[in-house]
């Protein structure tokens, strides 16, 4: 049963990950963005558990556990606290025209699928066809970091890019070694803490968390 439907379910979850990446790209509200990020972490966690049970790679259960703790619970909590303290909870961001961003996103997806196709043919894993989706979500997170002007969405983009990388590793070679994974997890955690401090500094200086202020080198 699981052997038969497992790979199909993994494919479905991969598709949901791609969908969530697009949802994040199109989201205007910062609060919903963080909730979507938590949802992406949850889907990633379920997908990892499925890969683990289909392939019998027991270390993936640990990765799934780390994902659950860090990306579904801890990081969204930190981010929620951050936006409450910064008081940007209901900020509606004015950014590039969203439909244009989405069209660029589709082009990126086609690019990622084409890039991944030869690699997946070489891989022997059951998850090989999802590599294209993993690469696409990395690129979409990149796009999000580029097109957003406020700092918090940029941080969320950075974190969701790590989600994409994690999924790519699971898809291509059934996950990274545990030491590397723990190292990355710690990096992401520290990065989000440092970025949090950084955001407070930006706001203190400019009364807003718009990173466009940082482009000016001198004060008037």
């Amino acid at each position, binding site marked *: 049963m699981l052997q038969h*439907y497992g790979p*199909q*379910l993994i*494919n*479905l979850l*991969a*598709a*949901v990950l*791609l*969908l969530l990446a*697009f949802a994040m790209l*199109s989201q205007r509200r910062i609060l919903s963005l963080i909730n979507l990020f938590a949802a992406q972490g949850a889907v990633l966690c379920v997908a990892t558990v499925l890969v683990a049970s289909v392939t019998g790679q027991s270390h993936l259960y640990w990765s799934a556990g780390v994902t659950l703790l860090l990306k579904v619970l801890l990081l969204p909590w930190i981010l929620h606290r951050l936006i409450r303290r910064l008081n940007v909870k209901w900020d509606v961001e004015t950014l590039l025209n*969203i*439909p244009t961003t*989405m*069209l660029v*996103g*589709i082009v990126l*997806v*086609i690019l990622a*699928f084409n890039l*991944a*196709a030869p690699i997946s043919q070489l891989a022997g894993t059951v998850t090989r*066809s*999802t590599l*294209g*989706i993993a690469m696409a979500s990395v690129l979409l997170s990149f796009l999000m970091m580029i097109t957003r002007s406020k700092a918090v969405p940029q941080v969320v983009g950075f974190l969701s890019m790590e989600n994409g990388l994690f999924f790519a590793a699971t898809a291509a070679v059934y996950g990274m070694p545990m030491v590397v994974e723990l190292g990355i997890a710690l990096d992401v955690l520290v990065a989000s803490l440092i970025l949090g401090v950084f955001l407070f500094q930006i706001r203190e200086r400019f009364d807003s968390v718009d990173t466009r202020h940082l482009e000016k080198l001198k004060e008037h």
Partner: protein
Amino acid sequence: MNLADAAAQFTELLLALLLAPLLTGWVNQCRSWLQNRSAPGLLQPYRVLAKLFEKEVVLAHNASPLFRAAPYLIFGCLALSAAIVPTLATGLPLNAAADAIALVGLLAVARFFIALAGMDIGTAFGTLGARREMLVGFLAEPALLMVLFTASLISQSSSLSTIVDVLGHREFAIYPSMAFAGVAFTIVSLAENARIPVDNPATHLELTMIHEAMILEYSGRHLAMMEWASSLKLFVYSCMGLALFFPFGIARGGDWLGIVLALPVLVAKLAVGGAALALIEILSAKMRIFRAPEFLGTAFLLAVLAMLVHVLLEA
């Protein structure tokens, strides 16, 4: 084409004509329940139709013959599409009359005439409604076509009847692409049927209405035909969605027992679908008309993604 097939086709068409107002009534009832209002009876749309058929027709002085012909043309288009979409059985005579692409064309013809009729009298409201309808329509149509293309890619045929045969009678498999296509189709059918995030079917508030603005000048039996046609449109879209995404229980042509068994399955699926539609309408707010392009753009994006995902994961 033998007599039995023709009889099955006729039954299907008759059923569509009779069930369509019931579906509208059911959606309204579910919506009233969810809004904590006491619901109008399930048969209210039939009573409205009966009342309108008895009333006399009031025409504007400058109404052209097109204005009088449009309700029948639109009703005819939608009745034909209801006969083409497989509801009870596949492989019926009219199924071969049009494939999925021609079906979209048929629905576009209906939209064309309703927009013309809206502009015919020359009132501001009718023109406003027609322009908005065309805006929504031209954005929804490509998304709908992409959804149908995805299903066609899976089943290697653009005929709805074959799509249902392939999807409904093969071993159960999960298609991620159909999940995307399903969301896109839901958005498209909300927009096409003038449901809440895009249009509100229960309002005559001038600034927000789309569909109601176009049929504002109609009365009597013309209005009855228009109302019936919009019920039929909801029915056609629901059945198209059920045929694409939940094709289980639809019989093959000529299998009479199957057709008889397909009827309760269809009614149950429509009941669940109608309740889901009411739930979506309750949970979402009417959006500004200028947000509609973005909403429908999302549907197009999802449908394109569905095709890409199909190529990547399922090919």
